[in-house]
């Protein structure tokens, strides 16, 4: 029985179209005489934009998540990767991605489009090696540039010394020269400065959008958020994506003003931590039948959004836009380095305590009743310290449940056992199992 009015997002179709065009543009880049590059969703994608308006990217994590969402395709890619000799316990995004190259099949149709160069960064133990191997699988003639971002946590967790920012900014400046060398193109500072500002405004705006989800009822649910946060991982420096987030903000704000809920029967709010098993997102819809809405996660909020944590109020706030736009290449590199080193998803690489504080801030201020943590065997980076996170959140008074799975390898996710565990968790929080036929559909 609905308690709150609900309606679909008006900009939903536009979001779908933008995403489809992104992957189609990458595939068709050569027909337009353009360039293609591959790299991490965390890469400083504003920099290659300085090479021209006809430069297109495929970012590995969202591409691999799309592969994982299509379970038969993913099974084919994972098998190819394992047959090649890659170990099954490596990052499942990476294995899906390599499998796509090995099978020579693009998840969106046709052959896998070979990139001209790889431009990425190295935050976890897999990232640099991911593209090193991808370049080799492409024949060994794809040049690779990796930015090391292991410069330490951001305040208030650790001091942000000037040399830390400079360490990353200098790599970006060197990278610009490298890009000119490997592509033979002249770098256009104006294009770069515009892209750098788009990066900053899109990631600021996403955090502002997430702030709106503090409202009861929540205007957005996490399954929908997965389809929206993704632009910050596809190419956060895209002007089209930054503009879309402005539009999305206005619509979500309007939903808040009118009391429009994402889930009409919202009785209880929960949150998660890291990537879900992408092939099983219907689990979210099943939980909604109970009246429980996932309002988001440290992952969706903190990977695309830029925040500042206040340890006195134990709260997060969107990191404000800088006072002025960057005017030079050097200023833009410094601004981007400083901006991205504050990314919440970077912080817990340094200590699970930082993740505990941020998740506690979300749980408290977004009025969360329970937390579901994913022991994600598929991501060595974001799985760091989850067991410690669980203990920390329990100590802070939160109800926490864990389940074991894999974001990109369905063989490591037991859907039936996980649903059973979630049902028990929801019952312990006072919800009753809904009398509906949908469960049978889910369990088949």
């Amino acid at each position, binding site marked *: 029985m609905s308690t709150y009015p609900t309606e679909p997002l008006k900009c939903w179709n536009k979001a779908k179209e933008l995403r489809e065009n992104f992957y189609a543009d990458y595939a068709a880049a050569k027909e337009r005489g353009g360039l293609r590059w591959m790299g991490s969703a965390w890469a400083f994608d504003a920099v290659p934009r300085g090479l021209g308006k006809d430069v297109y990217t495929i970012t590995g994590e969202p591409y691999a998540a799309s592969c994982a969402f299509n379970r038969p395709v993913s099974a084919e890619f994972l098998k190819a990767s394992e047959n090649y000799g890659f170990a099954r316990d490596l990052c499942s995004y990476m294995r899906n991605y390599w499998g796509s190259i090995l099978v020579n099949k693009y998840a969106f149709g046709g052959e896998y489009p070979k990139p001209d160069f790889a431009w990425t960064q190295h935050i976890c133990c897999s990232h640099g090696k991911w593209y090193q191997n991808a370049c080799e699988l492409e024949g060994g003639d794809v040049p690779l540039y990796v930015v090391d971002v292991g410069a330490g946590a951001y305040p208030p967790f650790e001091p942000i010394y000037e040399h830390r920012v400079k360490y990353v900014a200098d790599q970006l400046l060197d990278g610009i020269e490298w890009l000119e060398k490997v592509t033979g193109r002249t770098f256009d500072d104006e294009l770069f400065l515009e892209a750098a500002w788009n990066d900053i405004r899109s990631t600021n705006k996403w955090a502002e959008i997430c702030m709106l989800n503090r409202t009861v009822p929540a205007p957005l649910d996490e399954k929908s958020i997965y389809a929206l946060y993704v632009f910050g991982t596809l190419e956060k420096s895209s002007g089209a994506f930054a503009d879309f987030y402005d539009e999305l903000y206005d619509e979500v704000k309007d939903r808040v003003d009118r009391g429009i809920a994402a889930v009409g029967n919202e009785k209880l709010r929960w949150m998660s931590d890291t990537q879900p098993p992408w092939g099983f997102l219907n689990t979210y819809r099943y939980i909604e039948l109970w009246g429980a809405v996932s309002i988001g996660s440290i992952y969706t909020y903190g990977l695309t959004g830029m925040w500042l944590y206040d340890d006195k109020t134990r709260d997060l706030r969107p990191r404000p836009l800088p006072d002025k736009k960057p005017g030079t290449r050097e200023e833009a590199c410094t601004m981007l380095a400083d901006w991205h080193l504050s990314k919440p998803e970077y912080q817990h690489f340094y200590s699970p305590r930082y993740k505990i504080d941020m998740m506690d801030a979300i749980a408290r201020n977004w009025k969360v009743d329970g937390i579901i943590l994913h*022991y994600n065997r598929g991501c060595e980076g974001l799985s760091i310290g989850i067991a410690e996170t669980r203990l920390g959140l329990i100590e802070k008074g939160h*109800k926490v449940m864990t389940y*074991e799975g894999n974001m990109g390898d369905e063989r*490591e996710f*037991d859907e*039936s*056992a996980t649903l*059973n*565990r979630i*049902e*028990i968790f929801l*019952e*312990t929080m006072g919800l009753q*199992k809904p009398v509906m036929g949908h469960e*049978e559909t889910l*369990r088949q």
Partner: protein
Amino acid sequence: MIVSGIDCGAKNTKTVIMNNGEIIGKGSVLTGFDQKKAVHGSLEIALKMAGISQSDIDKFAGTGSGMDSIDVADTMVNDIKAMAKAANYFFPKCRTVTDVGAEEGRAVKIDENGAVVDFAINEKCAAGAGAFIEAMCRALELSIEEIGPLALTSEKTIPMNAQCAIFAESEVVGLIHAKTEVKDISKSIHDAMASRIVSMVRRLGVNEDVAMLGGVGKNPGFVEAMRRELKLEHIFIPDEPEFGPALGAAIVASEEA
């Protein structure tokens, strides 16, 4: 009022029939591949023992990993809630319950009404489930009935290092080759299993009294290993612990009727 709880487990399917809170019938059969057949087989035995017919039962509740096959069930009860209710029925002062079934180990923290406060379930791993002991029995060429009492005769502590049932089996084979006495290996197996379950209990906090349900509760070697690991004087176990979840389901059926 007559109610029935049916627990369709991975290895055995059990039925309990209660009349106004008193157990009047029980039945158990191997689950096998045909779960529905097992459900009706165990029900038939329980009905015979109770001396009633199926139409005399006012409400059925189902639980267990195969509960979707319990076609007579009016309501479904998750296995954690079922074991909590059963533990509260047998031991009202109990606040922590463990249940080791064939495929899963569980620990539950309950309140004075038998309501679930918190819970832990072992991940997809045989090392925390009854299947672990069965696999080790095969390696030692012992029956499941023999291994527990044999473990009680050992006074040695041989740590088992493997964290996985498959590798533990290799380790057992290694111990056999090293001429380790079978009774000592048996104790080592139970200690390893108990340490897995106890780590789940500790996640919730050990709140006395502690009760144990599930078929492994009939294994004295395992119960002793659990008692040692938990540093308790006594673990409370009903006479037929394997019927615990079925009984818990029956209690829920009576509450909802």
